[in-house]
């Protein structure tokens, strides 16, 4: 029964994905979307990947990282080097971007073994800044003036990456390993006492999150024609953080919804960057003051349609019941 139910959700998700993909592909082919809508669409997709990957690190494993733009930068530059300097195809660049960022994730994940909470936050922030400064000083990638990148990001690639990210991270969360990560979030000492290798899972979470952020970086680089170190400052990290916080720490669908909503809002406020940042900051403060669990809490969108007490819910639903 349980297997059937999970299967149903999975097939629903696939069906929904196919419909969204088909509609957009049809509209692009028919020339119904102008450049503005296309850009918004790509931004939404890229930010969704970023939000979901950060959700794994903060929401599931509870490691407060505010250096996500660093992983984005590593992925963007690594992939841009692949296509622009080495002349390799886009697929290779995507994978290379992800792998390079995953290595960076390992690098920052290892110090995280010793750090907790605030200290980890500051260390990751420092890591993001170090990445930016290294890129700023590397003449090979153009230093401050940046790197020209040809436009290779297409809708099918972008959409495939979004789906891949969501499926991998959702399945990871529901696997044994995901449960281990959640137990670290809830109480690291207790998880350790229960025989969970907390070090291993923290580093794994960082590496997986970074991998997908790197893929987002590859898409980002090949969408905007030029990448500069200043694109990847810590304001970018905060942008990603706010998706996860507003969506609800621990809710994948919340992160996706917040990413979509806020990207649309910020696209319309593009001409007024101050207003946009003021709204962002007020959203952060008011969310923390009045609804610290975010829009969705730790629930997923599916649980809204389920009757209370029905089985087969997510692990979080069970946790709430406890």
């Amino acid at each position: 029964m349980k297997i059937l139910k999970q299967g149903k959700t999975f097939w629903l998700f696939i069906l929904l994905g196919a419909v969204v993909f088909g509609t957009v592909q049809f509209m692009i082919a028919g020339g119904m979307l102008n450049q503005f809508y296309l850009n918004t669409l790509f931004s939404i997709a890229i930010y969704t990947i970023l939000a979901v990957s950060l959700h794994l690190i903060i929401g599931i494993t509870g490691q407060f990282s505010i250096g996500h733009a660093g992983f984005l930068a590593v992925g963007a530059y690594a992939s841009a080097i692949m296509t622009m300097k080495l002349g390799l195809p886009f697929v290779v660049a995507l994978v290379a971007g992800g792998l390079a960022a995953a290595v960076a994730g390992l690098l920052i994940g290892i110090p995280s073994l010793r750090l907790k909470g605030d200290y980890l936050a500051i260390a990751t922030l420092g890591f993001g800044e170090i990445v930016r400064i290294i890129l700023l000083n590397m003449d090979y990638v153009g230093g401050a003036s940046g790197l020209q990148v040809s436009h290779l990001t297409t809708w099918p690639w972008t959409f495939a990456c979004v789906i891949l990210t969501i499926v991998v991270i959702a399945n990871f969360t529901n696997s044994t390993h995901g449960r281990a990560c959640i137990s670290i979030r809830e109480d690291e000492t207790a998880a350790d006492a229960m025989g969970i290798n907390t070090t291993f899972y923290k580093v794994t979470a960082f590496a997986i999150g970074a991998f997908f952020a790197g893929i987002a970086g590859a898409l980002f680089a090949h969408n905007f024609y030029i990448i500069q170190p200043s694109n990847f400052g810590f304001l970018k990290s905060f942008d990603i953080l706010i998706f996860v916080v507003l969506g609800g720490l621990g809710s994948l669908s919340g992160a996706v919804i917040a990413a979509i909503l806020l990207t649309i809002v910020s696209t319309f406020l593009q001409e007024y960057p101050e207003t946009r940042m003021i709204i962002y900051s007020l959203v952060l403060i008011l969310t923390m003051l009045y609804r610290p669990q975010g829009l969705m809490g730790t629930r997923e969108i599916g649980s809204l349609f389920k009757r209370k007490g029905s089985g087969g819910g997510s692990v979080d639903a069970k946790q709430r019941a406890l």
Partner: protein
Amino acid sequence: MELVQQLVNGISLGSIYALIALGYTMVYGIVKLINFAHGDVFMVGSFMGFYSITILDLSFFPALVLTMAACALFGVAIERIAYKPLRNATRIAALITAIGVSLLIEYGVIYFRGAQPEAYPGDVLPKETISLFGLSVSSQSIFILGVSVALMILLQFIVHKTKIGKAMRAVSHDADAARLMGINVNNTISATFAIGSALAGAAGVIFGTYYIKIEPLMGIIPGLKAFVAAVLGGIGIIPGAMVGGLLLGVIEALVSALGYSLWRDGAAFVVLILILIFLPSGLFGKNVREKV
């Protein structure tokens, strides 16, 4: 000689970091919160100093005092509005709020006055070159160092010799026990924010007179570096923040002197990560065993 010159610059810059770091470390010591908005209090102080010098036509010291008073009020307002309701929330919630407050101040200032930079008038302090043991040192850097040291001595006096200082130390040691002893914890926390913010405001004015150019986003990097300084000295420990600030300034000056001036901003963060890995309680901190 070049090296010594750089060292003097480093110490001047370091004393500014130290003044900001003191606020971080005091607030962290008492409410266990990284007050991200602290760097922005520094920025606001810099602008207040600028306006009180140019519009109110004050000289350096009245402007400094006025700015410190205004920043103290500003800091208390931030604490009362944003942080007090979160006293019992999770650390992460408080940290996210602090980030939000920081962004709100930065972009609020940009919204009201625009993002264009402003330049301090050059004649706020006498500019002379004093030769000291064969070195030429600008009178400004000595003056800055003097003001910073005076403020730090004043702070030490407040913390160790006055009633409010005693209350602050008691609350940071054990807030519940302090409350049982009849200490008004909320007022003590507000006083800590007031003192820390006043020091950040003073650092803002000093920064402006020394480096001339100020802008609404200038608080971010010095704020982060001051936090690094606080961690370097051992967070929550007041002498640690002073030493950490000066040390960080000197490290940056040395990195510049070695010809890597573009890497200067990176040096602070490398120091941070190294210190967090190898000496997480800082130079002056004691290692506290975690209880479950």
